[in-house]
């Protein structure tokens, strides 16, 4: 299969290495909080550089809704260890006109952990109406239907709506092999890669640690959306896998619900239509019950090329079932290739594999630690 043509032109901020920070910022923070705070700070800074605006913020000492960004550096990102009671940093960002004129998307991040002293947890919510309220000790809320983007994914999508429960915002260290230390003892080294289409419609952030994609953040318009979709836009903060050393960008997480709980209705990426949130699975060309990149994990024996299949979006959510479009410039790859592999196999490195998904690339050598 020849290399695909791109739908968009892309801007890249790649290979941003975030080394472990040595000490916590205050006595109440975990040993690893500075590192994890630095990762979230970097993500916030990247979104703001792309034009997201700060609607409100809190540095665990003060808060405001006047648009001032109190997250001035990573030391302002402090966790509260019991939701609703202890002081914790938060921020609300807005992406104007994300799904079209007047359709603004809001992102809330609050550094709260349900499990005592675990800065790998947070509250991350998405909404199409503004957040308000909150304080140094309270989470801002949303009168509309805010969706928890990272809540426990073996339950129905309906449980995610209005659920402000904190959950892991990136892959737990226990899913690495050998297991990485928990945030109670130390931080983590990661590399951050950010891609944004030149028209601003597609924004993607990949966080990699130890050759495993440990978080994938995406806010993007949908390609060829089904007619009538009021908000043809996908939002995602993918943070899970259930197999050691498996990236969160995988067939099993994004296409296959076999790893889910009894409900089987909850994917990891989301859309919104006419007041309803919908879960979006990532479809692929397949035969029988395996996607092409899984079934034919090796290179094509006639052409010598690896297969790249477009990523489609499918929803099983009540009232919104159907095929709803594709993702721009994103493809399923072969499970045989490795994280960080580039395509073609020459110095041009026009595409890169993160997890089991292939992205456009800027020709540089990708770092995955």
């Amino acid at each position: 299969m020849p290399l695909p043509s791109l739908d968009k032109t892309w801007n890249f901020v790649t290979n941003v290495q975030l080394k472990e920070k040595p000490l916590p910022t205050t006595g109440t923070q975990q040993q690893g909080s500075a590192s994890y705070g630095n990762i979230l700070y970097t993500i916030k800074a990247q979104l703001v550089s792309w034009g997201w605006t700060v609607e409100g913020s809190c540095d665990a000492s003060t808060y405001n809704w006047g648009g001032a960004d109190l997250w001035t550096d990573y030391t302002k990102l402090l966790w509260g260890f019991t939701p609703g009671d202890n002081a914790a940093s938060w921020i609300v960002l807005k992406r104007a006109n994300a799904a079209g004129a007047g359709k603004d998307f809001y992102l809330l991040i609050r550094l709260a952990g349900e499990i005592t002293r675990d800065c790998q947890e947070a509250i991350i919510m998405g909404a199409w109406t503004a957040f308000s309220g909150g304080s140094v000790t309270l989470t801002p809320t949303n009168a509309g239907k805010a969706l928890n983007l990272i809540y426990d994914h073996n339950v129905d999508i309906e449980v995610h709506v209005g659920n402000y429960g904190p959950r892991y915002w990136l892959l737990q260290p226990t899913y690495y092999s050998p297991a990485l230390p928990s945030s109670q003892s130390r931080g983590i080294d990661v590399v951050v890669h950010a891609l944004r289409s030149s028209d601003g419609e597609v924004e993607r952030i990949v966080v990699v640690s130890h050759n495993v994609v440990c978080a994938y953040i995406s806010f993007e318009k949908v390609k060829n959306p089904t007619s009538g979709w009021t908000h043809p836009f996908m939002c995602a903060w993918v943070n899970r896998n259930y197999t050691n050393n498996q990236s969160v960008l995988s067939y099993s997480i994004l296409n296959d619900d076999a790893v889910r709980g009894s409900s089987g209705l909850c994917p990891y990426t989301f859309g919104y239509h006419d007041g309803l949130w919908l879960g979006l699975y990532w479809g692929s060309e397949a035969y029988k019950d395996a996607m092409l990149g899984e079934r034919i994990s090796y290179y094509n024996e006639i052409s010598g090329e690896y297969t790249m299949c477009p990523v489609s979006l499918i929803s099983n959510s009540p009232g919104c079932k159907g095929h709803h479009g594709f993702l721009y410039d994103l493809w399923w790859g072969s499970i045989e290739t490795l994280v960080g592999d580039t395509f073609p196999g020459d110095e041009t490195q026009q595409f890169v594999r993160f997890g089991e998904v292939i992205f456009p690339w800027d020709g540089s050598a990708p770092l995955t630690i």
Partner: protein
Amino acid sequence: MALPTLNKTWVFTKINQAIKEQRTSYAGGQVQLYTVVDAIRSWAGWEVKGSSDSVTAGMDGVDRWTNYTKVVWGGNFSWIVLRKPNAGGAGKNFEVMIAPYPGNTLFIYVYYSWAGFTGGTINTRPTATDTYMMIDWYYWRNTGNNNNFDCVVHSVSSSDGNVGRVVMLKDNVPILYVAFETAQNPVTGWTHPFYATWLWDSKAAITLDALTDSANVLAYDANAPAGWFANYLTCETQVDATTPERIPYRNEIGAESPLYPVGAISLAANKRGRHGQLYDLWWGTSTRRVGDAYPDDATKQFLNIGGHLVVPWNGSAFTPL
């Protein structure tokens, strides 16, 4: 999902060919086989390389199948070789030899060749050095031991003749699907990017599930080791079900009945991979029936022709049977 854009222009002169039960079972088989062959040879650029009507024969470019009575089973028998020049690229001519089997009027031979058939008399079939035996004296459509029944044949072909498809329906069920077509977006290096399908549902049911579950689409590649290889058809899928099966109804947001492109994949040794897709062919949802049109209005731009396969259509009324 908006209606798809066509890659080719299409010819519809051989649709809605109703075939009535004949006075004899033998005549029923004659008429049906003649109609299918007639559809194939009508596709743009296709030639009759040679033929036999059981009285005279020759690989001489003469088409002796002038009517159904020339399709003869017996000690002296009919055969015909149809050729599509340059089907697999310049100088790569695809040939299909079709011949009644002398010992049983329910059976025929269907052989393919890229090297080209030669010879053949009124009582010997033509041969080729690279024959693929698609049907080797066996049933050619699913009728059990019934050779005579009402049916309808539809043939659609691209104006360049590079894609041709025939379906035979009995009681609104597809019992035969034949397609000879150039591959769309073939992978680099494939020497003969062309698919050949002759499917009858005693071999594999003509359904989405069966066509994606069984390798019934033939192709050839001359790269060492040269040979024919079978392909499965592909479809967009989530988890363990194709989208048209998992969501077999209208899109709940757009109220459209979606159409999904058809690709082909091989697991044959030395030929493994996805090598191309099929021009202007789609899967419709599993709840749509034979003859259902897309859109569901007077334009009928696409039609479920059987087996959940949707082809371009010309808006005319569809004769299911």
